[in-house]
């Protein structure tokens, strides 16, 4: 079986997606699927286990910028911004 859809929620600082626990390449696919949804806003906060090395070229290709922000212990948290 493939993994279930990761949790997505909205808060004041943007749309959050938690892809922890998913095997490669599911985190990357889930993030790209989210940013390609028309209703998705301009800021996404991604909760990961590690740096998504192979996600960065895809974000560059789609004109999204990315920067790390503080997260929980053991978490790698990334803020994506559209067109920045």
């Amino acid at each position, binding site marked *: 079986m493939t993994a279930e859809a990761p949790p997505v929620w909205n808060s004041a600082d943007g749309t959050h997606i938690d892809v922890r626990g998913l095997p490669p390449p599911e985190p*990357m696919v889930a993030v790209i699927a989210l940013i390609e949804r028309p209703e998705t806003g301009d800021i996404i906060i991604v909760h990961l286990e590690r740096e998504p090395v192979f996600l960065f070229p895809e974000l560059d290709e789609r004109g999204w910028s990315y920067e790390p922000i503080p997260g929980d212990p053991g978490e790698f948290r990334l803020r994506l911004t559209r067109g920045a």
Partner: protein
Amino acid sequence: MTVAATFLGGAKSRLLPASIPLRFFAAAALFQCLAWLMLLLGADELQGFQGGLGRPLAAVHLLTLGVLVMTAIGAAFQLLPVATVQPLRRLWPARAVFWLAVPAIVALTYGMSEGEPGALAAGAAGIALAMLVFAAAIADNLRRARSLPLVAAHGWAALAVVSAVLLLGVLLAVNSWANLLPDQASAALAHFILAAYGFMGLLALGFSYVLVPMFAMSPAPPRLPGWIGFWLALAGFAFGTAGALLAVDLLLAAAAVLGLGAAGCHLASMAWVWKRRLRKRMGLSFVLVRVAWLVLPAGLLLGLALALGLPVPGGAALFGFLVLVGWLLTFLMGILQRILPFLASMHAGGSGGRPARVSELTPGLPLKLHAGCHFAAMAVIPAGIVAGNAALLRLGAVAGLASALAFCWFVLVVMLRLRAPRTR
């Protein structure tokens, strides 16, 4: 150092230095030129080729060791740590493998082409050593794998198979002057089955479960068909090797049927991925990959026909061409033309410059030329084999050489763009 700089440094530290995978890929591109050139020079000998020293054998090994294995090693060193979520402990084995393998491949294929036992033996020993270093480095990574058990299983099986491939290869090399083996043709067939389907096939199928969903932007496929296919493939290798060594056609036919089952499971998984992909425009690279997917069962069907004793003109040479060029080379060239710009984009930029986009690093014209000439070779050479026509074989080899030169052009452009400074 800023948080962002630390982050980018950390992200890039998970990648190998670009020079490591790129040296394998560049060598593969150059060896592909040599393989087609050797086939062109040996076209007259290819008709009725049944193994043994000569230019066709040298061309086969320039293709298998020089192109397929070098590509697989470069991809394994770069991608396996990402798939297993475990970095390589040391970089020197990767560099050592390269510097052992390249001169060894040159020596081995020179020895095969010119019938020089010394060069043949030195080359075989060098390749065996390089593959053992590679196997040890990859085994260390697989042992620590925390993710993707199906990919890891394919990796372990490929490493197990490689020892048998090396043993048979060294025995065949020694046998070229010492006549140790009672039946050289049987050992050569077992060597071919294990090397092409066993080692290269397992790596190609295993990495597909990560790379194809990644490039297609699709969820990972259901695991069960992949596992069934994996065990069918292992059973196929066992039957095929036994059938070749014991010269029992029924076992070879059973191996082909098991292989068809394994291929069916794999292709069902790939079709599942394809149907759910987010990226609709997959580009020329996946035209090559999809053609390779079609040729995989076609080669096994031809193998089954040969095992059942059906008359196929040029059957053995046609089977070898379908497996090595039609399936493996076509597949790897398709994947490589996606991997190279992708890796380059992760290493490009920096120094305050903006990141390089994959599309900016992918020159279109060389890839169109490569695909056109590659497909021309795929059409003309089988026709030449079936018709027993050396002129067609030469024409096909020229088309193949043109495709290889176009691919070298592509690799060169990617490398130059990787080094080019970027500004916002």
